[in-house]
C-alpha cells in the first residue's frame, strides 16, 4: 500500500490516494503501514526524532499521575510500565507488571500478583512495597491539590493499599469502582520508583522520577526537548508488544513545534521522523506527507467524543426535549466530517469515539433529516418567521454557543446547517478564562467538552454531577429525572465487575443520552501521525498514544 502510493506520478489525484490511505489507517490500529511495508528484520540503534505541538502552557508536567497532556502520556508510556496493559483491538485488559489479578466479588479489593525480576532503572526492585508507595503517593497528591490532581478520577474511591507479600499487593476501595482495572493499564497509574515519591510533586512534574520502562527519561526541557535513552536489560514488555525485550532505538527525541505547517514541513524535509499533531492533519498536509513518500497513521482517541452538552434549564430553548431532538436532525454529521477534516474522516456515532470499549453506535438516530427537524420544531410551537428563523411568543429560536480560539472547528458550518431548519446558532467567542463563569451562570445553550480514556466510565466525569469536572455542565445537561437515570446507569456499571452487565449498562446509557438529547456528538477525535519512510514498527496503544518498543529505523 505504502509503496504504491509513493510513486509520485502514478497517483491520478493526490486526493484519491489520501482517501484510500486514510481509510486503511483509520480503520486499523495495528501499524500496518510501518511493519508490513518494510517486511524486514528490525534494525537496532539510531535516534528517532518526533515533533509534538507546544508543551502545555498551563501546567508543565511529565509526572504520570498529575499530567493530562496527551503528548506527555506518550512520553510516559515508554518510560514507566503499568500493572496491566489494554488490547487496542478488543479493549481487554492483559497482564504486564502484574502476571495475574483477582477482584473480590464485592468489587472492592483488587489483588495483583507481580511479575518477578522487574527493576526500576536505578536497579531497585519493582515489588509490592513499590506499588503501595505509588498508590500512597497518589493519594497524597490528591490531598495536596485539594482533589484537583488529574489522576484523582483514576483512583476514585481508593481507600488504602496493602502489601500481602513481596510480590502480592492488594488495593482496597471504599466503594466499588469497576473501571479501576482499566485505570491500572493507563499511564496515569504507571508505576514509578518509591524514591520518586520522596521528591515533591513539582519536582516529579519536571521529570525527577524513575520508571521501569524500555526507555529512561534522560532529560525534560519543557517546550524544548525531551530525550529518552534505551534501558539496557529491559525484558518485561507487555505481551501486546511484538518486542518484549530491549528497545530497538538508542535514543528518542521529542521536540515541540507550535506551528502545524512547520511541523509537517520538518517531516517532509527530513528534519524529523514523526510529526505528531494535536489536531487532525489538514487534507493538504496529508497530501504533502504521502507525496513525499511518508506514511500516515491514525486512530481515534478513545473516550468521550468531541460533543456539545445542552443547557436544559427552564426558560432556555433546549429545555424542550423536542427542540433537542430536532438538533440531531438538523446537524449533518457526515457532511461536517467530510468538509472540515477530509473525505475519509470517520463520522462520529455517539457519545464515545469508536475505539472506546463498550461503544454502541447510535448512527440511526443521528441521521440528517431537515424535514423531520422542521416538523418537531413546528410541533413544539417554533414557527418559521419571515427572515427564515423560527419564533415562539415573539422570541427568536437562538442558541448560544460559547467558543474559544481552540474550539472553533467548523462551528460556522454547524451554524449554517442549523439555519437551514430555522435555528440561529450564535457563536460567542470567549477566552478560556471566561468559560467557568459562563457555565456557572448558565448563559449558554450548548457547550463542548471531551475526555480521553479507554473506558466509558470517563463520561461520568462530565455528566454525573457527583463526580463531574464541571458541576454546572453536568447539572444543566439534563432534566433531574434523566440525570437520576444517568447516575443510576453509571453506578450500575461502576459496581459490577461482570463485563456483560457493564456492557448492558453502558449500552442503555449510550442510547438514553441520545434519546433524551443529553449529548450532541460533534466529531470523532482522531490522533494522526505522519511517519517518514524510514520508520517501521509503528503502533498505537489502546489510548492512541505511541508505543516505541517495536519501532525501528532504517
Amino acid at each position, binding site marked *: 500500500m505504502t509503496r504504491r502510493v509513493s510513486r509520485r506520478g502514478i497517483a491520478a489525484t493526490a486526493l484519491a490516494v489520501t482517501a484510500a490511505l486514510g481509510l486503511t489507517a483509520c480503520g486499523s490500529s495495528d501499524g500496518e503501514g510501518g511493519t508490513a511495508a518494510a517486511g524486514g528484520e528490525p534494525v537496532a540503534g539510531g535516534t528517532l526524532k518526533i*515533533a509534538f505541538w507546544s508543551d*502545555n*502552557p*498551563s*501546567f*508543565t*508536567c511529565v509526572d504520570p499521575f498529575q499530567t*493530562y497532556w496527551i503528548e506527555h502520556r506518550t512520553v510516559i508510556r515508554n518510560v514507566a510500565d503499568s500493572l496491566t496493559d489494554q488490547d487496542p483491538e478488543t479493549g481487554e485488559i492483559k497482564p504486564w507488571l502484574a502476571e495475574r489479578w483477582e477482584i473480590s466479588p464485592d468489587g472492592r479489593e483488587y489483588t495483583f500478583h507481580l511479575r518477578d525480576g522487574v527493576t526500576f532503572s536505578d536497579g531497585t526492585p519493582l515489588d509490592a512495597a513499590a506499588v503501595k508507595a505509588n498508590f500512597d503517593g497518589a493519594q497524597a497528591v490528591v*490531598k*495536596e*491539590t*485539594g*482533589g*484537583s490532581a*488529574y489522576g484523582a478520577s483514576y483512583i476514585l474511591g481508593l481507600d488504602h493499599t496493602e502489601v500481602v507479600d513481596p510480590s502480592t499487593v492488594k488495593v482496597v476501595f471504599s466503594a466499588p469502582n469497576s473501571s479501576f482495572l482499566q485505570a491500572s493499564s493507563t499511564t496515569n497509574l504507571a508505576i514509578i520508583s518509591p524514591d520518586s515519591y520522596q521528591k515533591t510533586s*513539582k*519536582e516529579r*512534574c*519536571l521529570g525527577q522520577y524513575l520508571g521501569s520502562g524500555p526507555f529512561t527519561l534522560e532529560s525534560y*526541557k*519543557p*517546550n*524544548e526537548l525531551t530525550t529518552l535513552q534505551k534501558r539496557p536489560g529491559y525484558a518485561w514488555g507487555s505481551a501486546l508488544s511484538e518486542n518484549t525485550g530491549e528497545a530497538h532505538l538508542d535514543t528518542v527525541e521529542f*521536540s*515541540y*513545534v*507550535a*506551528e502545524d*505547517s*512547520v511541523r509537517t*514541513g*520538518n517531516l*517532509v*524535509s*527530513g*528534519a524529523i521522523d514523526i510529526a505528531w499533531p494535536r489536531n487532525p492533519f489538514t487534507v493538504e498536509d496529508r497530501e504533502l506527507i504521502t507525496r513525499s513518500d511518508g506514511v500516515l497513521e491514525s486512530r481515534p482517541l478513545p473516550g468521550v467524543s468531541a460533543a456539545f452538552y445542552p443547557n436544559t434549564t427552564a426558560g432556555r430553548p433546549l429545555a424542550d426535549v423536542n427542540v433537542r431532538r430536532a438538533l440531531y436532525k438538523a446537524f449533518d454529521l457526515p457532511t461536517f466530517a467530510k468538509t472540515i477534516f477530509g473525505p475519509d474522516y470517520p463520522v462520529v456515532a455517539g457519545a464515545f469515539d469508536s475505539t472506546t470499549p463498550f461503544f454502541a453506535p447510535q448512527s440511526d438516530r443521528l441521521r440528517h433529516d431537515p424535514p423531520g427537524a422542521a416538523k418537531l420544531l413546528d410541533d413544539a410551537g417554533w414557527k418559521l418567521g419571515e427572515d427564515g428563523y423560527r419564533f415562539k411568543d415573539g422570541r427568536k429560536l437562538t442558541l448560544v454557543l460559547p467558543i474559544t480560539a481552540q474550539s472553533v472547528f467548523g462551528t460556522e458550518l454547524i451554524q449554517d446547517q442549523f439555519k437551514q431548519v430555522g435555528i440561529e446558532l450564535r457563536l460567542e467567542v470567549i477566552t*478560556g*478564562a*471566561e*468559560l*467557568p*463563569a459562563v*457555565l*456557572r451562570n448558565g448563559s449558554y445553550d450548548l457547550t463542548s*467538552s*471531551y*475526555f480521553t480514556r479507554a473506558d466509558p466510565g470517563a463520561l461520568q*466525569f462530565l455528566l454525573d454531577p457527583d463526580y*463531574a*469536572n*464541571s*458541576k*454546572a*455542565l453536568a447539572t444543566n445537561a439534563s432534566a433531574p429525572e434523566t440525570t437520576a437515570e444517568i447516575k443510576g446507569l453509571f453506578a450500575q456499571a461502576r459496581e459490577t465487575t461482570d463485563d456483560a452487565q457493564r456492557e448492558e449498562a453502558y449500552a442503555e446509557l449510550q442510547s438514553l443520552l441520545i434519546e433524551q438529547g443529553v449529548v450532541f456528538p460533534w466529531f470523532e477525535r482522531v490522533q494522526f501521525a505522519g511517519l517518514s519512510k524510514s520508520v517501521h514498527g509503528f503502533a498505537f496503544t489502546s489510548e492512541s498514544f505511541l508505543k516505541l518498543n517495536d519501532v525501528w529505523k532504517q
Partner: protein
Amino acid sequence: MTRYILGRFAQALGVLWAAYTVTFAVLYLLPSDPVALQLGAAGIETDKLSPAELHTAKARHGLDRPVLEQYFSDLWGFLHGDLGESIAKQKPVTALLGERLGPTLTLTVTAGVLALLGGTALAYLASYVRWRPARMFLTRLPSFGASFPQFFIGLLLIQFLSFNLGVLPATGTYGWKALVMPAITIAILAASQLAQVLMRSFDDTLGQPYVATARAKGLSRAAVQWHHGFRNALLPAVTILGVLIGLTVTSAIVAETVFSRNGIGKLAQEAVLAQDVPVVLAIVTLAAAIFVFVNLVVDLLYPLLDPRIVHGQRKAVA
C-alpha cells in the same frame, strides 16, 4: 549633569514601580484566577471542588492570601531579588528567566544590529542614488517591509531556506544556524521603520543651507552626505531607537513562536495565556527596565550627536 542623571534614575524607578503595580492590578482584575485557569485547562472547573479543597489548591501557590498582602509581600520579594515561583512551570521565576534570557538577548541583539545596518544602509543608498526609478524603488521598499506581517515573513523564510533549500533548520533555540531566520524576520520590520525615519531626515538635512554651502565649497556629493548629512540626519533615528528596542522585544514573541525558539518572548506568551502572575510580572518589569534604560542612554547620546542640545540646563532657562 549628575543631578540630571539622578533625577532620571528616580524617574526610572517610578516607571518600574508603576509598571509592576498596573500589571499586578490588571492580572488581579481579570475574570478568572490562575488556579481556575490551570484546572480549566485540565477540563476541571472550580465548582467540582469544595471550598476547603479550593482553598488547598490555591494555598499551594500562595493565592489564598488577601490581595493587598499578596501585592506587598510579592513586591517586597521583588525588591530582594525573589521573583516568586511560576504557577504553571513548577520553577522559581529567576531560574526560568535565567534559562530563557540568553536565547532572546542573542536574538534581539543580532536582529537589532542587522536592523541598524540594514536600515541605515538602505536610507543612505536611497538618498545617494540619483536615478529616479531606483530611488523610487528604494524609498518605497521600507513601507513594504513594514507592512508585511512578521508571521508571514517567518513562514516564507522557513519555506525557502529550510524546506526547499535545506540550508537552515526551521526550528531550534541554540547555535547560529537557528538564529539566522528569526533574526532576519525581526530585522526586516525594525530596519524598515528605521529606514523610513532616516530617509525623511536625510531629505530634510540635505536641504539645509549648510549643505548647499558645503557643496559650493567644492566637496563631492559623497563627502557632503557622509560628513555633513549623516550625523545630523541620525538624530531622529536615535530617538526611535528606544522604540525599536521595544519593537524587537515584542517581535521576539512572534519570531520565537514561529521558529519554536525557547526565549522570553515565548515565555511571555505562555505566561499570559496561563495567567501565570509571577512570570508575567517579572517579564513586564524586565521589559520596562530595558526600555527605561535604553531611553536614558538615548537621551544621554543627544548632546554627543548635536552640541546644541544640553541636559540639565533648566535653571539657566528659568
